[in-house]
């Protein structure tokens, strides 16, 4: 004697293929989104607080790295032209507008270099000073060539890199950091091309939080 299955089970059996497809796509999207939100923190090349990837912009880069760069750094060059190091957290704590940070450095083996602050939306941060970055020529340096940059919401120090609310709607923010820092080394020397994890880079420390 044949028993008819309950109606709910029967419907589920009919819909199981489209439901499985939707569930799989959802999982794929969540995993990819999670990878992208972690930024270059996913990549194996870490140098102090900075992270980078060797195949940014390259035709050899993996599909996930290319997707990440398309979202967070579209039109990046390959490393022979310029190398990109980012910082979005200090010792695992995301960069916050409530804290100030000190970047200490000297000269680096590259044609030129710059450090830029970007909002969580990856665009330049609105500020009254119209100061978005420092480069090796406009920094005020000490006699020995060393320099310091203070990254904070309120004016501090000689080389002040202001940060503040990003230009996009705060309701759209889905990243843990309020902003991040990007070091660009143009025509980097061999140390960066061959040993990006040990080559000399500026040091970043958290100064104080309110």
């Amino acid at each position, binding site marked *: 004697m044949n028993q008819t299955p309950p109606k709910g089970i029967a419907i589920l059996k009919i819909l*199981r293929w489209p439901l*499985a497809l939707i*569930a*799989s*796509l*959802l*999982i*794929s*999207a969540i*995993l*990819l989104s999670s*990878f992208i939100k972690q930024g270059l923190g996913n990549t194996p090349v870490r140098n102090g607080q900075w992270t980078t990837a060797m195949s940014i*912009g*390259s*035709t050899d*880069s*993996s*599909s*996930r790295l*290319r*997707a990440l*760069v*398309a*979202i*967070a*750094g*579209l*039109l*990046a*060059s*390959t490393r*022979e*032209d310029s190398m990109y190091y980012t910082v979005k957290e200090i010792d695992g704590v995301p960069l916050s507008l409530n804290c100030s940070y000190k970047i200490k450095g000297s000269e680096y083996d590259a*044609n*030129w270099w*710059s450090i*830029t602050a*970007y909002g969580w*939306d*990856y*665009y*330049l*941060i*609105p*500020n009254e000073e*119209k100061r*978005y*970055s420092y*480069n*090796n*020529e*406009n920094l005020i340096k000490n006699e020995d060539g060393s320099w310091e940059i203070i990254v904070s919401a309120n004016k501090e120090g000689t080389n002040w890199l202001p940060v503040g609310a990003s*230009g996009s709607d705060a309701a759209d923010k889905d990243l843990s950091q309020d902003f991040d820092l*990007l070091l*660009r080394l*143009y*025509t980097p020397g061999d140390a960066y091309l061959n040993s990006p994890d040990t080559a000399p880079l500026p040091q970043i420390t958290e100064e104080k939080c309110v």
Partner: protein
Amino acid sequence: MNWFRWILAILIIGWIGQFPMAMVLPNLIMERLYQQAGQSLGYNKLAVRPRPDETFRTVVRPSPDLYYALCFYDLEQGSVNINAEIPERYWSMQFYQMNTANFAGLTNQRDEEYRVGSEIDVTLIGPDSDPAAYKGDVIQSPTERGLMLLRVSGIGDDTQAKAALENSSCQLKV
């Protein structure tokens, strides 16, 4: 047991699926840029952009230390000629295909430093064209459409950098 196998299959397929999804995403982003920015700036035409500030929202992570000029190219009607003046400071001409990969580039750095102070004429051809049929600097794009980006250092005295971009061009070859 049957449901367990279904759930396991969904998880495995979901994990694998992020990779083809990652392959599609850059194409969608580039297509959107190509359509939106291309329509306002024009195709096969060089658009020199002002120095980036907080209002620059065409592309993420603009550098405030660079001047940019873009040319959205379409090689369906033939090759494109790019003429550029090369300043003393850092200059680069990078080519991007529709999946966002930087497939070719020229610079005035390293062993290409000899280009400083000169003009360059680049012929950009499509994937089905024969590079041997062209003279001079030839770049073959893997896709019919894409983007050429000129970057020039804007640090220090930027007079030469701005002039170099203003005197450059991108147009269909006649």
